């Protein structure tokens, strides 16, 4: 078998390339500072680091939009296939900005919760939370910027190692059991991914995504490799039927941690699947595989929503709704792999998928935060005991409701735009069955959201009292995220030009 020789990487470090390195290193510097200065300064350092991280994310975005080319940094000046490249295209930038905003909001939400208690003894719990939050931010940025499949493996492992301890932060037996189950699924996923990278390396002698796109050929071994990696990543993304670790893990974690886990962590592994299927595999050769992924997504939507309808506890309901909403993400695969004639529909589906990812991230973070506030206010999160709760904490339920609106796909909201684009492309491509699933999923989502909102907004028979005070500031953080999820709906409904920067044909002709 003749091995195609990988060409040298087609670009050099660009002017803004150093920003990419900073995006990964700044959170890590924050962690080092936290551990060297002790718990007294933890919260201040962490919040400052998150603010710098957000500024860097916007700077990378400005650089990308300014030059309309991917931002690239070659580590040590070595070109792939020997060296490693960091590369931000339109999709990476969208995710980096999204991650920075949500993690910064989570930091504000958690402020005070995991703060330093001047009266008490020095404790490790708060330091752990902030360390893990910064760790997740660094690891996710590494995923979004990584251009090397093995580099992505290391990044996804970092995400796992920071996410698992977040699940069992409170040290209760149930949460530790949930964390262990999550870890075992994640480990299975990581070895399968690693085996896939070995196979791909044996085929082409490089793991750089840009170079692979130039040399890949549709051989059976490549498909086996991508199948192994995809299944491994599905276990980490919690797509049905590999979702069974998710509800206990996401529902058991502290509210601030759940928000990050549900909104961002599962998207990290999903992002790598996107890279594999759209940026590594040759165009239009994987129709069969995409239909399977879409089918699993459809099952996830139906199954997750129906189980969410039957939950007795608010946090579990939100966690099962995550299972369902992850399903929508996978409808991108059958819809966006159009060839030739259906090209406009494919790029519409692609934009819809990214909008779904973003709007779900904001909406779900807001809803988990709202659930945490409900718990603070009432001392429980049983849905049967929520009657009249919206009179005590109206802003919290407003945030929950606005987030729910986006999940249902009511206009105007990010969820509506996403589902509308996907619906259009499903009908346009003649794959009407996906349209049906999207509509049914929306109705089921309405069912589980109203199951919470209707009793909460009703006049209660007996006046319920708040168990504890709810900070207005934390309510506003949740509300802001929900409003952003809504505001995404005002982005014009058309294939986004930014998301196309550095993708497809363009990726190969970077050099002017």
């Amino acid at each position: 078998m003749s091995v195609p020789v990988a060409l040298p990487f087609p670009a050099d470090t660009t002017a803004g390339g150093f920003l990419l390195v900073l995006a990964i290193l700044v959170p890590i510097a924050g962690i080092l500072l936290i551990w060297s200065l002790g718990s007294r300064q933890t919260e201040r350092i962490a919040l400052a680091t998150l603010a710098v991280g957000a500024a860097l994310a916007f700077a990378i975005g400005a650089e990308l939009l300014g030059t309309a080319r991917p931002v690239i940094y070659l580590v040590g000046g070595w070109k792939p296939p020997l060296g490693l490249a960091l590369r931000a295209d339109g999709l990476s930038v969208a995710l980096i900005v999204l991650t920075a905003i949500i993690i910064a909001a989570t930091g504000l939400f958690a402020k005070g919760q995991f703060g330093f208690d001047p009266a008490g003894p020095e404790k490790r719990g708060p330091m752990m939370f902030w360390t893990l939050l910064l760790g997740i931010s660094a690891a996710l940025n590494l995923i979004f910027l990584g251009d090397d499949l093995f580099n992505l493996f290391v990044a996804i492992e970092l995400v796992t190692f920071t996410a698992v301890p977040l699940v069992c932060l409170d040290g209760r037996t149930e949460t530790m059991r949930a964390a262990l189950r999550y870890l075992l699924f994640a480990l299975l996923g990581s070895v399968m991914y690693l085996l896939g990278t070995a196979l791909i390396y044996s085929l082409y002698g490089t793991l750089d995504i840009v170079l692979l796109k130039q040399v890949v050929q549709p051989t059976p071994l490549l498909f086996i490799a991508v199948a192994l990696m995809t299944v491994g990543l599905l276990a980490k993304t919690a797509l049905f039927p590999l979702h069974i670790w998710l509800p206990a893990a996401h529902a058991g974690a502290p509210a601030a941690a759940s928000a990050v886990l549900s909104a961002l962590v599962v998207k990290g592994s999903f992002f790598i699947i996107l890279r594999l299927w759209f940026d590594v595999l040759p165009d239009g050769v994987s129709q069969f595989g995409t239909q399977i992924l879409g089918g699993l997504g459809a099952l996830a939507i139906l199954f997750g929503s129906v189980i969410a309808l039957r939950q007795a506890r608010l946090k579990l309901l939100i966690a099962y709704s995550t299972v369902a909403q992850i399903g929508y993400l996978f409808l991108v695969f059958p819809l966006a792999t159009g060839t030739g004639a259906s090209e406009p529909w494919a790029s519409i589906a692609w934009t819809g998928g990214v909008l779904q990812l973003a709007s779900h991230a904001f909406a779900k973070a807001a809803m988990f935060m709202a659930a945490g506030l409900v718990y603070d206010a009432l001392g429980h999160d049983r849905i049967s005991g929520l009657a009249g709760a919206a009179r005590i904490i109206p802003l919290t339920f407003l945030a929950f409701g606005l987030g729910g609106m986006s999940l249902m796909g009511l206009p105007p909201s990010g969820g509506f735009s996403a589902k509308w684009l996907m619906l259009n492309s499903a009908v346009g491509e003649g794959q009407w069955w996906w349209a049906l699933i999207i509509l049914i999923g929306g109705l089921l989502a309405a069912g589980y959201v109203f199951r919470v909102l209707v009793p909460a907004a009703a006049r209660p028979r007996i006046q319920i009292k708040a168990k504890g005070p709810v900070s207005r500031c934390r309510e506003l953080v949740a509300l802001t995220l929900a409003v952003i999820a809504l505001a995404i709906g005002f982005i014009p409904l058309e294939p986004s030009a930014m998301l196309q920067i550095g993708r497809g044909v363009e990726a190969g002709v970077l050099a002017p």
Partner: protein
Amino acid sequence: MTFPFDTATLYGLVGALLIGIGLFGLIVDPKPIRKILAFNLIGAGVFLFFGVVAKRGAGAGFGGDPIPQALVITGIVVAFSATALAVTLVQRLSQEEAAASDADGKDRP
């Protein structure tokens, strides 16, 4: 005795066998500690496979390709940290469970 295939293929087959045994253990065995061991077996198989890839070498006529070996070293570090984290979790869990069962069985003789 001579093998019907070269060493690289033999190593590849052994790697595949290890991965198979590990996968079986990870899915079938209910005990967490055995699942962790099974994960390490799969890991060993995958690392062996990287060795095979290095020997077969995509490079131009070298005795071996150094890149897969570099990847294996990183992979081992990652697998080691994963194992450490998992074992710590199992240990904490078993301590909690022992404490819980002590509290239950206090009135027993």
